[in-house]
């Protein structure tokens, strides 16, 4: 069996109800598990941007991207490997203030990991950390050793491509030109 690679898909679609469902159904139909998913407004009005990561082989990712792009309402779907993109996640930690006071090392760990304390009150402190999965997990596992983590959440990955500008505008302009011709 071919080795599986972690692929990141970047998809732009119209902001209409039901499209997310249709996009994810392309994965479920092939029994491919989505590792992470993020959907939010893009820089172009009315268009949403999806960042989806999954493990699969190259032939499959080619076919899936084609089938996603075919859905009515999807403007463009492309896939990338890790080297082609800058990828980032965000994590939120809720830490016990009492434990932080008891163990000064916790604050030091937060600094070493370039995480940021955004709120402190007598019961808890909120810490944010942006970065790659491994960096966030490293902070998480270190904090866990101090038994200070009350809550922890990690976002889906978001990614931007390294090689070029946002080309969707140009792509849409070309498409429109073809349509008018």
């Amino acid at each position, binding site marked *: 069996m071919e080795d599986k690679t972690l692929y990141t898909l970047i998809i732009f679609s119209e902001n209409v109800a039901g499209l997310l469902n249709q996009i994810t159904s392309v994965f479920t139909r092939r029994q491919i598990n989505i590792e992470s998913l993020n959907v939010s407004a893009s820089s172009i009005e009315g268009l949403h941007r999806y960042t989806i990561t999954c493990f699969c082989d190259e*032939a499959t990712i080619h076919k899936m991207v084609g089938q996603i*792009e075919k859905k009515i309402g999807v*403007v463009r779907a492309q896939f990338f490997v890790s080297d082609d993109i800058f990828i980032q996640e965000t994590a939120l930690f809720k830490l016990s203030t009492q434990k932080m006071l008891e163990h000064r090392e916790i604050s030091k760990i937060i600094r070493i990991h370039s995480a940021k304390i955004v709120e402190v009150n007598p019961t808890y402190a909120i810490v944010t950390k942006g970065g790659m999965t491994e960096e966030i997990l490293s902070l998480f596992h270190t904090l866990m050793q101090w038994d200070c983590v009350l809550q922890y959440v990690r976002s889906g990955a978001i990614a931007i491509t390294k090689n070029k500008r946002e080309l969707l505008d140009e792509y849409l302009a070309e498409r429109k030109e073809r349509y008018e011709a």
Partner: protein
Amino acid sequence: MTRTKISGAEILMRSLVAEGVKTLFGYPGGAIMPVFDALYDYSDRLHHILVRHEQGAVHAAEGFARVSGEVGVCLVTSGPGATNTVTGIADAMLDSTPIVVIAGQVGAQMLGSDAFQECDIVNVTQPISKWAYQIRSAEDITRAVSLAFHIARSGRPGPVVLDFTRNAQVETAEYVPKKVGFQRGYEAVPPTKPGSIEAAAEMINAAKKPLVLIGQGVELGEAQKEVRQLIEKADMPAGCTLLGLSALPTNHPLNMGMLGMHGSLASNVKTQECDLLIAIGMRFDDRITGKISTYARQAKKIHFDIDPSEINKNIAVDLAVLGDCKKTVSAVTALVKENNHQAWRDSFNEYKDKEQRLVIEPEVFPKEGPVKMGEVIERVATQSHEKAIVVTDVGQNQMLSARYSRFTEKRSIVTSGGMGTMGFGLPAAIGATFGRPDRTVCLFVGDGGLQMTIEELGTIMEQQCPVKVVLLNNNYLGNVRQWQELFFDRRYSFTHMLSPDYGKIAEAYRIPYTLVTEREQLDNAIAQMLSAKGPYLLEVAVMEEDNVLPMCCPGDDVDDMLLEIK
């Protein structure tokens, strides 16, 4: 000037008229009643055919679309009315048939409350339709309808579902016609990559043993003439897929027959010998390729298609020519040189002769024994002067109709290819009679498939649709029985089927009927059926345990065909 406001139901009527709709197939019910009420006043412009089951409506819409090239329309109520169309929607999706299914829905304020006959049909049909959309306000109707028809008929055609909430039917709004403009989220025809036309012509010019595969895309793209010009200029033999059978006249000297599992021996053998495979508007279905890993490995491949996601989906190709095949094929033809591949063409003859001797003669021209399906189909083709629209159901009747019908006109085969939907035939034939009232429509159906949608005989009776039903009765679910014979040690598990007295059924529906049990009766009975004005049911008692041959068995190489069962 203020415009008059009219009900959403009437806006739908006007929008349908504006789209050129003249015929719709449907069945009323609670959540679509305002639309049916509006239809009452539009019956001079919109001919509504009342079917007997919503599955019949959707297959009739498919049959209508396939023969006419127009969009088939189906009008049903919410809940069960809508879910009864699901098989037909999936069927139309796999076979790229342009239909619009308009289903009633509970009022928008009740959505999600499990109201009476509420079903989330948009979510149900999204994975099996080209587009599924819910209209929730009267203002949205004209836009949604024009977009629905545009999506259904453009690019690679397909089924569209419009889920029409009751409030949107009764609320009023102005009727403002909308034209579909540029869509960011839909490009019907992908651009042809620069250089791909030239590259295709070069590959064709360099080929010594080219083989063209003609799919339904040629019919859908109205490129029958262009493809013929290409193969004639470059002198290239061609095979047709099941759905592409009438895209090239059967008797064309370059037509080497159907491809695939029950296709012609010559076209399948030569698939494994050609040096260039040129696929036009087909999708390398597993019924065409046989074992994928060994399929035409020796050949370079060019794939002409309008759907980019079909490229390299099943079979990796060397060159993709994206776009509308009517344009791309003629552009390639202009660049190919006139050629002569006589030796290559002649090499097909050996296999044609072998198939003729071992398969066709015993199936089509038997001298004794029970009547065979193949001979019935061949006689109908001859007596209808190869001009009839052939509608089939699914199974042995379908494969033998495909093998032994002969076509001289385009858009003449209507069959459920991708889904293989039993029960498709009778309602699809009804639709075909409305799509091409000027042509003879012959349906070949088995006893299993007929009983699946037999209620549509009621529609035939009421509408006097001139469907010539040829019932090939072998008292078996023949195709499954054949597989049980070949692969399950003749353990005929639930494939023997008791039939009703079809003569009495025909009589009850006031449809003329003849039963043929002897070969000698066949010609006269067919002549009588074809000369009858309206519908006709011709039942032929055919050989019970007959097999469709040749056959490329599942998992075998495509040229490894079974010619005889000993």
